[in-house]
């Protein structure tokens, strides 16, 4: 039996532990560049200088932003599962962090692994013997079926419909180009370049919207990122705990764990709210005034919802107005929450009612009016963009394919700008079709030709 194994040149990345929330998650990379790619974003020891079968503590950062503190395990080729260089990153077990880390690695140059690809590489590189092959094959089979169904269920709100529509338009586009190339002698009219440009620009808009929706998709899948902002003693942690305790029965398993807050998820009326890095919760200097500092501002901006919490007994109208002004400038939806109603002086409450009639008055410590707060929170997200019915992308592989589609479409536009001839345009269009095909199924030249023959009278 002849056998040719070509070494894999690309580095793949995927979550190695089950999907869903666990205490920790392991993200695995395999391929020649896996160590280098992780090292690029790892703050700690120089991973490229470490021995195999070692574990290192540090943080993963994107620019300034710390994504998580992690443990990195190194396995140098060939002493690894796939017999390639393998890195396993142990992160805290939130799907948000997992996705951030995977996205980060993709931006570094890794490619999302296909279903069963680690196992496949392991086998191809001689890790298993033939006797195990059938069992492995069965495993992979079920793997890909499951992942296929997962992908299908992730397509919400007409995702597949929209992609199919896009594909049809692109095929038409490609056919028009191919028509001109292959049937130059024919008496048919060809599409104008202006029409082609309009079409590509239209397609780009759709693709870009889908790409942008990826974050929104994650919001739906992983929870609405929410920040409680306020002065150190405004009662932020009390409020969080109050909400948390109320929902304990239906909150995810994170609740009740003893580890420090990285995030907490609270289910309110069927919507998951993820409280990220609650501003001011731990860092006493991190006040609303500090929002001028860009880092804090970024944190606030990345939230989809802010609960602005203030202590009625420890503030005045000037401070409140200034904070609200700052929040309004952020452009993130926020609720004005007045805490410790029992301590508030009448004058301030009256003034608030007059100037900010939408203020919600609660007592976090005494669990007063929490239901009202929750209703308001739900009202806000329901009215907001989450329910616009737009197509949303939640799958990281789809995200990857859409990004490549986008790049190819941009190449088409560049080609149009440089007035290259249609055969070159066609090449970039085909690349776009190829990448879209990774979502919808392969597009063959037969599709193009069938389209041509059905629409145009061709042939001598």
């Amino acid at each position, binding site marked *: *039996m*002849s*056998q*040719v*194994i*070509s070494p894999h040149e690309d580095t793949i990345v995927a979550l190695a532990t089950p999907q869903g929330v666990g205490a920790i998650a392991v993200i695995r990379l395999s391929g020649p560049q896996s160590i280098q790619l992780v090292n690029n974003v790892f703050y700690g020891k120089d991973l490229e200088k470490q021995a195999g079968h070692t574990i290192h503590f540090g943080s993963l950062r994107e620019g300034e932003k710390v994504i998580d503190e992690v443990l990195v395990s190194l396995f140098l080729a060939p002493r690894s599962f796939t017999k390639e260089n393998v890195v396993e990153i142990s992160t805290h077990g939130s799907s948000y962090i997992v996705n951030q880390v995977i996205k980060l690695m993709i931006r570094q140059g890794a490619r999302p692994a*296909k*279903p*069963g690809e680690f*196992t*496949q590489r392991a*086998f*191809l*590189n*001689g890790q*298993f*013997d*033939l006797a195990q*092959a*059938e069992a*492995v*094959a*069965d495993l*992979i*089979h079920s793997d*890909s*079926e499951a992942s*296929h169904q997962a992908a299908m269920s992730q397509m919400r709100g007409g995702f597949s419909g929209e992609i199919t529509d896009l594909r049809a338009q692109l095929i038409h586009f490609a056919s028009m180009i*191919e028509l001109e*190339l*292959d*049937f*130059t*002698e*024919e*008496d048919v009219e060809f599409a104008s370049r202006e029409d082609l440009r309009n079409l590509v620009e239209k397609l780009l808009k759709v693709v870009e919207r889908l790409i942008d929706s990826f974050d929104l998709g994650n919001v739906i899948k992983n929870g609405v990122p929410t920040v409680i902002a306020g002065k150190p003693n405004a009662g932020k942690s009390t409020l969080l705990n109050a909400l948390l305790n109320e929902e304990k029965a239906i909150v995810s398993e994170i609740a009740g764990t003893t580890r420090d807050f990285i995030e907490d998820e609270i289910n309110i009326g069927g919507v998951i709210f993820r409280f990220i890095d609650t501003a001011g919760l731990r860092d006493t200097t991190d006040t609303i005034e500090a929002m001028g500092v860009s880092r804090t501002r970024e944190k606030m901006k990345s939230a989809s919802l802010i609960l602005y919490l203030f202590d009625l007994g420890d503030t005045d109208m000037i401070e409140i107005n200034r904070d609200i002004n700052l929040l309004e400038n952020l452009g993130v939806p926020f609720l004005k929450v007045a805490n410790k109603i029992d301590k508030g002086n009448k004058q301030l409450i009256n003034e608030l009612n007059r100037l900010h009639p939408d203020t919600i008055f609660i007592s976090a410590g005494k669990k007063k009016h929490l239901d009202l707060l929750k209703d308001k929170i739900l009202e806000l997200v329901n009215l907001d963009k989450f329910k616009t019915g737009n197509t949303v992308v939640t799958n990281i592989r789809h995200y990857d394919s859409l990004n490549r589609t986008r790049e190819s479409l941009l190449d088409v536009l560049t080609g149009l700008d*440089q*007035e*290259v*001839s*249609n*055969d*070159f345009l*066609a*090449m970039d269009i*085909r*690349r776009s079709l190829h990448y879209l095909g990774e979502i919808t199924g392969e597009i063959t*030249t*037969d599709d*193009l*030709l069938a389209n041509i*023959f059905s629409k145009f*009278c*061709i*042939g*001598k």
Partner: protein
Amino acid sequence: MFPEYDVIVVGAGHAGCEAAHAAATMGSRVMLCTMNMNTIAQMSCNPAMGGVAKGQIVREIDALGGRSGIVADKSMIQFRMLNRSKGPAMWSPRSQNDRMRFAEEWRLALEQTPNIDFWQEMITGLIIKGKRIRGVKTSLGLEIPSKSVILTNGTFLNGIIHIGEKQMGGGRTGERAAKGITEDLRQLGFESGRMKTGTPPRVDGRSLDYTVMEEQHGDAEPEKFSYSPETKVLSKQRSCWITYTNNKVHETLATGFDRSPMFNGRIQGLGPRYCPSIEDKINRFAERDRHQIFVEPEGWDTVEIYVNGFSTSLPEDVQLKALRQIRGFENAKMFRPGYAIEYDYFPPTQLKLSLETKLIDNLFFAGQINGTTGYEEAASQGLLAGINAHHKVKEKEPFILKRSEAYIGVLIDDLINKGTEEPYRMFTSRAEFRLLLRQDNADLRLTRYGYEMNLASRQRYDLMQEKEARTSELIKKLEQVRLRPEGINGALQENNTAPVKENITVEKLLKRPQLGIRDIIKMDHRLEQELAQYHEAVLEQAEIQIKYRSYIDKERQMVDKINNLENLKIPHHMDYSSIKALSAEGRQKLSKIKPETIGQASRISGVSPADMSILTIYLGR
């Protein structure tokens, strides 16, 4: 009566001629059997070679050492490079040919090839022993023994000609159909099908009024197909003419529809969508009030005219009446009516990539028997079948071209993996790497193979190497030579492109869409002198490689990605039924096609990505 041959070729059309020539040139003892020695290498349809994608194939055949390019050059009456306004991958050589000269040149070439014997008779059966072919039987009851057989029967297998309500057995107008081979093959377990094609009427050129038609000249600077110096470009050419049908023509044609074999169900075979009959065109595209008609002379001296675009099987009286309503055809005299022909073909998924059948060892198929259409498609298959029959007999590895190497590779890979429901014609859009598969570089892509197989001559090989070396030398030079702003800015503005502030390399200038290498050479006297030594083909090659480098590189990267899969071989006797994890459809398709590599398997319709993963796992060891 006969010795044992290495290769018998049945049929002497485009495929058969290339097959016999290739096998004999490489050293096989070849017998070429034809029903009529006077109709060797007939252009049964239009008197033309090449065209978009097809011209590239002719260049590829030539680069490998095949003969079609040379024969086309020697019988050419007009040359046009189609698609000149597009990128170099689209440039497609096309010629009008003298039908009689074309056949004569092929016949002379075959007669002059040592090792080819001829026999004129219908072949009616195959001699099979065990699972292997041993020769053929003739209508006189003779047996011709052979180590291998190539069937290139064209439209002759149980051919039926239709004109209106009349039908007659025949392989071409005025020629008998061939019987016996289909029946033998079916008994051996081969699947067969019916296909249909058609041809237009021929008319007397003296009866046409050319003054009301558009004249279509050949190129002012004609080129040719062959890379070999054996042929020269044309010094004079004949024109073609273009005219159009009109509503009256369409109405007249429609009066014959009730007697059309196309519409009354008498023709069962499937015809090509891209080469429809005129009745098909007006039926399917009723909104069009005219269709193009190409008026093509059949040769230098003959008055016979081929009415391209008017393929039809309507009754002859309707054909003539409709023809005479075309502008310029008012007084047309018809020489022969158009007709449709139905014939047997064998779905090509029954072949290996070498074109050998999977069922019977040493039996090869090439041309229309595989469901293709076109002289070029047939000739290229004949060439590969000839090479591979020779290799098989001499116990050498099969010669297989990759999709990224040649249109011929795309053609055969498509046939074997996808089969075809309608006559298969090559289009550039079928090739995923068409920027690499250009007519200007077929020699650089393929002549090395041809030479190593003793098919392409030493002279061709040397010329190719010279072109290759001089091109890379020139590219280096163009990357180094810098031109000064004061010397070129005037010329740059004349060419509508921005002036430069600093010295600039020729290479950089060449990347500007407005500038060709000729424009730049003219800008600088010293450059002009320095480059005078380079041959036109070398200048062109360097220009293409520099100008389109970024696109070509992108395509090469895709090729590398895909070749990784092509390198993963699947053993011949893989038992797919034992792989339980495969999907039912995947298992069935894989068992039928028996792909030779993982890459090939991935192109089979019905084989899912999940099946591919499983297969890859199985092959890891």
